């Protein structure tokens, strides 16, 4: 059965099943006085600061973002601890609306753009550079119309890197797609079920593109998944075969041009460049986990904490590895490479969305537009107006998406000192 046949069969089956229901039940439209605050304990837990857990015989400090207590200063438990983290909770202190001064600063920082839809898909940590996926139309169920452009910006100045074939768009890792000489990205066709069909390497000095890999026949079951990453002078990407529970980690040496392929008896849905090393994001039955692959390893307690937290996805940016669990996200964990300290931030109820994307200190934003953003300077959840989306902080400036519908139509670059910390 081809992918197309399966999709058609699935579509027909879903409609037939839905049509089995021919009459709506009578719904009650007013509550009858039941308690509605079953999640109140989250608020009660707000003041809890530090706990210590033992994972695999190693002590891991999990501390509140309110109290920067070093892990080493917390006492080890005298009794055996659970094998997965069950720390007490920390939380943000309050939720506030976006300050009016922020809106004025965002308006003043508008970046001139020549496309109607503009998505920041990757940033280069430590610089002012970032990649923008520019579209002429939003994707529809039938795919993408028009040609997408990949542009590299430095501050407010952008230049086109590639114009992609009709109906395709670029995808890139959030923080490991750009270096001084190269840009690596994937080519994706919206509307299909595949992840991306090509791995492309762009030479910034010559402007030439090289296709490093292409997805095979859909019926082979092999898929390019996750996003390609630049790490240690090589490009890495993952080809996965779900049916065989197998992956191949492929690489291309930027200096020698030598390619390599290493088999892996697991489904590696992503590669994570966390600055000092490269980890594999493995897909499990109900959550994902990290495994060291190259470079300086993540501390074992951190790997264990990530595995035990029910993590869904991981991001690395601004020197911090973050992951989150729950769906919608209710707990965000973060860790600096090499550290055995894991910060745990409980997201207030009613703040759905993954804490994802290319967020950098001092902000952590949800991927859901307008859902909110944590200002870590004051541990305040700032409720952003729909259409405003804090994306990253680069070179002391906040990169902010505007006019989300749901894709950003505009971008703004605002010096951090123009965004005074939000207060309760």
């Amino acid at each position, binding site marked *: 059965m081809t992918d197309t046949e399966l*999709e058609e069969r699935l579509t027909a089956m879903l409609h037939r099943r839905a049509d089995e229901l021919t009459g*709506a039940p009578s*719904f009650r439209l007013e509550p009858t006085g039941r308690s509605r605050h079953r999640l109140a304990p989250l608020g009660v837990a707000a003041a809890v600061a530090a706990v210590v857990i033992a994972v695999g015989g190693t002590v891991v400090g999990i501390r509140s973002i309110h109290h920067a207590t070093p892990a080493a200063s917390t006492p080890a438990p005298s009794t055996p601890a659970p094998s997965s983290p069950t720390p007490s909770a920390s939380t943000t202190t309050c939720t506030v609306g976006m300050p009016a001064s922020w809106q004025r600063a965002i308006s003043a920082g508008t970046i001139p753009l020549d496309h109607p839809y503009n998505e920041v898909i990757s940033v280069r940590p430590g610089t002012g550079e970032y990649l923008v996926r520019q579209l002429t139309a939003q*994707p529809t169920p039938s795919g993408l119309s028009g040609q997408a452009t990949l542009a590299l910006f430095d501050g407010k100045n952008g230049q086109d890197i590639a114009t992609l074939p009709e109906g395709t768009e670029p995808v890139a890792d959030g923080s490991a797609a750009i270096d001084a000489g190269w840009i690596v990205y994937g080519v994706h066709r919206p509307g299909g*079920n595949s992840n991306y069909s090509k791995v492309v390497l762009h030479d910034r000095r010559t402007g030439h593109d090289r296709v490093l890999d292409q997805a095979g026949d859909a019926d082979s079951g092999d898929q390019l998944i996750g996003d390609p990453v630049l790490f240690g002078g090589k490009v890495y990407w993952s080809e996965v075969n779900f049916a065989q529970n197998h992956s191949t980690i492929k690489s291309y040496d930027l200096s020698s041009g030598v390619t390599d392929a290493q088999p892996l008896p697991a489904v590696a849905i992503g590669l994570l460049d966390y600055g000092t090393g490269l980890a594999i994001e493995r897909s499990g039955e109900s959550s994902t986990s990290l495994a060291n692959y190259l470079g300086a390893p993540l501390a074992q307690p951190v790997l264990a904490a990530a595995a035990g937290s029910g993590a869904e996805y991981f991001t690395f940016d601004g020197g911090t590895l973050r992951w989150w669990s729950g769906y919608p996200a209710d707990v965000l964990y973060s860790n600096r490479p090499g550290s055995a300290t894991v910060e745990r931030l409980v997201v207030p109820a009613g703040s759905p969305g993954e804490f994802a994307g290319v967020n950098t200190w001092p902000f952590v934003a949800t991927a859901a537009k307008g859902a909110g953003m944590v200002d870590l300077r004051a541990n305040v959840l700032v409720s952003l107006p729909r259409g405003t989306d804090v994306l990253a902080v680069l070179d002391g400036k906040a990169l902010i998406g505007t006019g989300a519908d749901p894709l950003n139509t505009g971008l703004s670059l605002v010096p951090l000192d123009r965004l005074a910390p939000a207060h309760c």
Partner: protein
Amino acid sequence: MTQLPAEEVAVPDFRIGAAQACTLSCLATEHGLTLTRFAYLICGDRDRAEDLVQDVLLAMHRRFGPVLPLADPVAYARRAIVNGNISWSRRSVSREIPTERLPEASTGFAEPDDQLWQLLGTLGRRQRAVLVLRYYLGYPDVDIAEMLGCRRATVRSLAARGLAELRVRLSAAQPGASS
């Protein structure tokens, strides 16, 4: 009927002016069947689908009152149904409730669609939600990501994995079929 607390089905406020508002009663009467069908595909159980929709309507009443200041109350309700179903799975298993309706018999696959339906139920809730949104409602990935509050890359991964698992299990159930 098990009731979800308002917080567990909360979604962002996409408010509009009162002049454009529709009522909760309007949502229930004009879109109740549509929402119940969607909930059925999301959770796979008719009784639970009705409970999900009921809970979402009550949560919306608690949050907004009888008049809904929302640009698209159906989309809001759909998102709440998806989130409510996922939250439901995280709560105690002791919430089983007696019912007069017997569960659907599991007597094998009367026809290929039944098999696919049963296999859909073996997927994770996120995978299932993505497939229903994509192949029943025809949502593009960007809208699914918006509805689920996740990255587009996440949607791509969930869909690819869900389809791959369906395909593998279909092949396993039909030894003669090609993989």
